[in-house]
């Protein structure tokens, strides 16, 4: 098992956003968080990725706690590739600079040339983020998430802004990553994307998993 979320709870101010979340995702599988707006999908992904601190429970990636002690925390996060829904790298950086940053921070090799080519990042390598279209920015962020071939991909609305060809590329890349043994967790309102990915749906409502039995 690559991802083990245990009894997770998240508050935002006085409001409880997530309660008693238990989710397990095996290597080589794709899971999709589905549910209405405000169900807690993006919050859960942010807590899994180590961006939003939970007030209870644990998130383990490859057995290491994302919110644990420094060394364990870094080990967990080095196995993650994350793209938030509103991923927007600083506008003055170029695509190549964002990719180089992620590779250096993860101490990993640069993005695989084949992946880079399929995402069309060569054409925008030296283009500033703030001069890219929404879809190009999304491709750059997906490229950043794929740097170092992480064991767990956490992607919030990954097809947002992508054209049909880009969406097809996304589906094939994620399926290939799963076949190679990685796990993928996405949040999406796009039933077509969930179906094309062959993803196991995990429904959230009111900050809880609707069918806990289906979450493992």
């Amino acid at each position, binding site marked *: 098992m690559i991802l083990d979320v245990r009894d997770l709870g998240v508050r935002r101010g006085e409001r409880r956003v997530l309660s008693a979340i238990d989710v397990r995702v095996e290597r080589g599988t794709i899971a999709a968080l589905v549910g209405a707006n405000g169900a807690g999908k993006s919050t859960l992904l942010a807590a899994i990725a180590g961006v*939003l601190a939970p007030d209870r429970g644990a998130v383990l990636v490859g057995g290491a706690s994302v919110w644990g002690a420094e060394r364990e925390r870094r080990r967990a996060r080095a196995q993650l590739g994350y793209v*938030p829904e509103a991923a927007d790298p*600083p506008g003055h950086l170029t695509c190549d*600079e964002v990719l180089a*940053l992620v590779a*250096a921070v993860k101490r990993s090799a640069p993005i695989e040339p084949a992946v880079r080519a399929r995402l069309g990042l060569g054409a925008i*390598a*030296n283009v500033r983020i703030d001069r890219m279209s929404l879809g190009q920015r999304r491709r750059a962020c997906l490229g950043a998430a794929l740097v170092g071939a992480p064991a767990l991909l956490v992607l919030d609305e990954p097809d947002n802004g992508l054209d049909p060809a880009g969406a097809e590329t996304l589906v094939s890349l994620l399926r290939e990553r799963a076949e190679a043994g990685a796990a993928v967790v996405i949040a999406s309102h796009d039933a077509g994307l969930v179906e094309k990915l062959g993803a196991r749906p995990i429904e959230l409502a009111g900050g809880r998993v609707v069918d806990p039995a289906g979450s493992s």
Partner: protein
Amino acid sequence: MITTWARVVGAAAAERALPVWAGVGVVVAIVFGGTGMQPHDLTRLAIGERGVGAALAVMWIVLVVPVGAAMIDPPGAAWMRALPSSRIARGAITAAVAIAAQGPWMILWGSGEGPLAGAIAGISAAAIMMIAARVRLPMRRTAPTWRGPVRALAGVHARTIVRTRGAAIARAIAWSACGGLGAGLVARENELDALVPILVAIAIAAPAGIAGVAGTVAESDRAIAWASLAASRGARAAAQAIVLASSGAALGVIAAIAAMILGAGGPIEVAAGAALGAALGATGVRAGAWGVRDGTRVVVGMTGAAVASALAIGALGAWAIAGVAAAAAGLVAPLASRSGA
């Protein structure tokens, strides 16, 4: 229409010119108040010693170039250009605002050498400002090869400052040069050892410069947090400290070299200036973290650093550098171990 144009260009110029004027006011108070010098003495010095004159002129242009840059394409100007109005009238208003932005420079030369010299100084500085403001340096955009998280994060922060805070950089350089020249004058006119006046000038000028970029570095750290999840808190704090301490050190060196132009100080002052500037720069990490949602806090924090370090230097001399460095380390260290993402 013309009135609206004057408001648009005038507001854009005033937003950047007023901080410059305020800073010049502080330097003028120190230079003319502390030494008994008159504007005439400074203008004579600038005319008599070419190095001083050139340094003074370059410093002023560096200070006001961001004002010119803001006037070239101010917010709301694009659609106004599409409306039927006289280009000559718009140009005349822009020129008048550009000359008005040279206020302190014109007052210096007008008081020192007469109204005609003041007018010539203002018009020529305005012309140079507008020409220099249109210069665009080519940006190097090759893929970086950073080794390790600290270098990568520092590289991103440095790019953030250079690419988004050009006006703040220009102001910081000019303040430091101004401070160094002021300290050099004070030391020369009063036959003092240059070290303490130079350090006091750096204690005031460097935090003013760092205040312009500390919040930007903190914001840069937050903006790339999702892409740098595997970086430790220590690496993130270290990267910010390296960038701001390097910036502070550079400002310290600029101030010490400016004083050297007037024959005050030497390599020891340059080294001490770099050390003090670096320590003050590092305090900017804490000020930036404190003021990431409210830029006023950054200014308050760096003003506190300036006052405390200037007082410490006045009391302890160069030994105060060690105290400032220890204080900076004490301020940054908690950020490296703070809980959170």
